[in-house]
Every structure is written in C-alpha cells, then in structure tokens.
C-alpha cells in the first residue's frame, strides 16, 4: 500500500557485530531480560511486518512501569518514533527511542489475548495462542521479578500501524515495517524488557505469517 503520511526515519550508527548480547525470539515466544541504564537495545524485524508487543518495568521496583497514557499525553501524539520518551506511571523517563527505520509504532491497540480474540474474530478461536498468554508464561517462569497478572498492562506494539482517523476511528493498516527494519532505545534506568513476539494468525497486519525478531543490546 501507499503510505501517505510522513514518518520520521532515523538510522543507527551501531554495528550488530559489536553488540554485547543478541537473541532471536521466535513468534509465539517471549523475551524477558534486564537492560541496564545507559545500554542501548534494538528490536529487529527480521522478515518484516511482525509485531513485537512490549512492556517495560523499573528493574528495582516493577510497580513502576511503562505507561501508554502518560507517554501519549505528555508528547501530545499517539504514535511512537525517534525522540519519543517512554514514560512510566510515575512520570519518569524509562527509555528514549534513539533510532527507528520503521517510523511509526502503535501504543493504543494493546496485545492480543485469547479472550479478546473471541470478541474480535470468533468464540471458537478462544484457544489460539496469543501475546497475553506468552506474558503469563513469562511472569510464571521468571519468579525473580515477583510479578503477577496485575503487572500486565497497556503495551507498545513495535512495527504495528494503527492509524487514528480525525473523526475518531481506529484502523488496522498493513504493516509499514519490512525485512530488516528496526527500532532502537536507550535505557534511562535499569529496565525489565518483556516482549511477546506476536503469534496472531487472524490479523492481516503480519500477512497471517508471524516471524522471528532479534533483540540486540550494546553497552
């Protein structure tokens, strides 16, 4: 499709071979690791049009976490891109997007869940794998963070394109990401990064073909 809006593209000078940590996350799996203050990390959309459903927590006190509403309100814009400061529910800057070759990311649409899939698609689809199930498994398998379902909140969908229309509609467009597109963030605090690499099979946004992403971290 033809993208008519202007999006901001900023490439990174960081070289993958110099990364201190690299991990490929298959679709339907999760990533849950601490990125230290001052480190930069990248999510790479290896094959294109993938969605990385992401939550952030203060590693010293996970009650402080990424807040979509505070981020949207304080930057006065619904989309995330280079220069966006990702704010916590305590109004502190957790991370800043410092490079972005996709240009626009969603933080309104939330994550897929088995339950919301019943509403969006069909009650019979209730047992198809979904992002919130990956998060539930992540918090269960990582007891060291002491999280429960109450910690699972309103996320970022990196690489997703969910335009808001001027008359108050919400549309789900084809992804504007492509193979090799990435988004990069610098951490302002020690941050737990929790990503569900979206397993959704019912949404055309990923061409009904969920694919791996890679996480890279530089000191």
């Amino acid at each position, binding site marked *: 499709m033809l993208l008519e809006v202007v999006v901001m593209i900023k490439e990174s000078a960081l070289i993958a071979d110099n990364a201190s940590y690299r991990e490929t996350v298959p679709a339907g799996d999760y990533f849950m690791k601490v990125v230290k203050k001052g480190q930069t990390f990248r999510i790479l959309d290896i094959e294109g049009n993938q969605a990385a459903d992401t939550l952030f927590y203060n590693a010293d006190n996970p009650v402080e*976490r990424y807040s979509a509403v505070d981020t949207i*309100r304080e930057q006065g814009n619904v989309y995330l891109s280079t220069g966006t400061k990702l704010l916590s529910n305590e109004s502190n800057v957790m991370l800043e997007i410092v490079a972005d070759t996709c240009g626009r990311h969603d933080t309104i649409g939330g994550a897929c869940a088995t339950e*919301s899939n*019943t509403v969006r698609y069909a009650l019979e689809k*209730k047992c198809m794998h979904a992002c919130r199930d990956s998060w539930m498994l992540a918090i269960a398998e990582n007891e060291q963070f002491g999280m429960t379902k109450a910690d699972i*909140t309103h996320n970022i969908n990196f690489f997703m394109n969910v335009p*808001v229309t001027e008359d*108050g509609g919400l549309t789900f467009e084809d992804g504007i990401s492509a193979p090799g597109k990435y988004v990069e963030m610098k951490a302002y605090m020690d941050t737990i990064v929790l990503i569900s690499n979206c397993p959704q099979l019912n949404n055309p946004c990923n061409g009904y073909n969920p694919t791996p992403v890679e996480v890279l971290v530089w000191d």
Partner: protein
Amino acid sequence: MTKPSDLTTPEPGTVLYEDTLAPACHWSLRMRKGTILRLIDNEGGANVGMLFYNPDNLLERYNAPDTLKCQHTFKLTKGNCLYSDMGRIFCSIVDDTAGWHETVCGNTTKQGVADKWGERNYQEYRNEWNQNGYNSFLVELAKYGLGKKDMAANLNLFSAVGADENGDLEYKQNNSKAGDSISLRFEMDTLVLLHTCPHPLNPAAEYPRKPVNYQIIQAADVDENDYCMNFRDENKRGFKNNEIFHLGGHAAGGCCHD
C-alpha cells in the same frame, strides 16, 4: 443462582437513587447487572475519570486497548461497549448526548496540576483544594486492596481528544454542554471507581471545578434487537461471553488453560 431482587424488580426507567458528586472528588460504588449509571454534566465542561473491576475477581478490569480495537474506534459514544481484559462487557453506552468520550490520556497528577494550575493544598483550601485524578484513583483502589499496579488506562467521560493525520492530539473544547449526559447499562456486576477531577489536557486558565449528577436507574431487559449488542458483530460476541459467564460455569477463554 437466585436473585433476591427478582421479586421486587422496579419498572424499567425507575430512578433508584440520585446524588451529586462535587467537583474534584472521588467515589466508588458497585453496580448491579441490569442497572444504568447515568451521569449528567450539570454545567458543561465536566470530566469523569472512571475505572471498572469485576468485584468477584479484581484482576479482571477495564481494558482500554481491547475496548478500542474490538470496535475499531478511538472515541467512545452510544452503541459502544466497555470491555474487560477477559473479553466481557462491563457496560454498554445506551445513551449519550455529548458524542465523544476518550480513554487514552490518563489522569492529572499532583505535579501536573501544580505546574498547570498551581498547588492548592488541603491545609489552606480545605475541600476547595486542587485534587488530582491519579491520587483520587489511588485512594479508591486502596479501599479494595488494590494499588498502583492495578490502575489501568482510564476513561475520561465528557472529554474529547482527537488526533490529526500525524497523530498530534487535539483537546476539543466545548465537547460537553450543560445538561449533557451519558448512560452506562451494566451487563455484569461491576465495581466502578470514579473521580471528577479535570481532564489533564484541559487548557482552562483556572483549575476547572465541575460537579456531576449521577442516577442509578433500573434497566429494561436486553433483547436480541438491542442497539449496543447489534452496533458491531464484535459486540454480539462480547454479549455472548457475558452470557456464558453468567451460566456460572467456565469463563470464556478458559477452555484449555484451567
């Protein structure tokens, strides 16, 4: 499950209770399935911050992203349903004269109010202080053993915020006029938390103080021609999830995980 109220159910439309919430205050109440909470903006320009929880399982709560994406909408108005994270409908917007209510801008904070309108503490101003929405919700949450991590993205009823093609936010002034109202018909028993603190993007020079009337009204039974149920196919499925929930058996989505 027997409902003790069945023997004495009032006529639909009967106002069971009404009261006024003063400006800049907070409250909470449990709404029963089959009742309507009607909120009236007495003076125009009010804002009502609101959150919902399932009183039988406080981990089930209002989910703004699910509500918006399930109905492909950014604004909320008559016909829309307000969803939990479990695929169920807490309540349906059965009437609305304001036309736009938003759910992505969150609350005022203590610091935000001080920066924008100046600090007015309780010691000096008593109940004319500049209360903020964030602390208001914290107080109401704590009454039910809940805290910061339980605070979801809230509704801001009577307040409209749009976005242009670049995504820039636009707070729409004069969205709600004196006498405008919104009616929420509860489709399951729901714990409602609310405050009357101003919208965080309200550009008013002075801290806005707007009272809100509320009424609890007996609803008519929901039939298959119901406006909200038929507003979108997704809502039909949401109502079905509620129906399954009220069988008292398995929650939707629980088939292979329980």
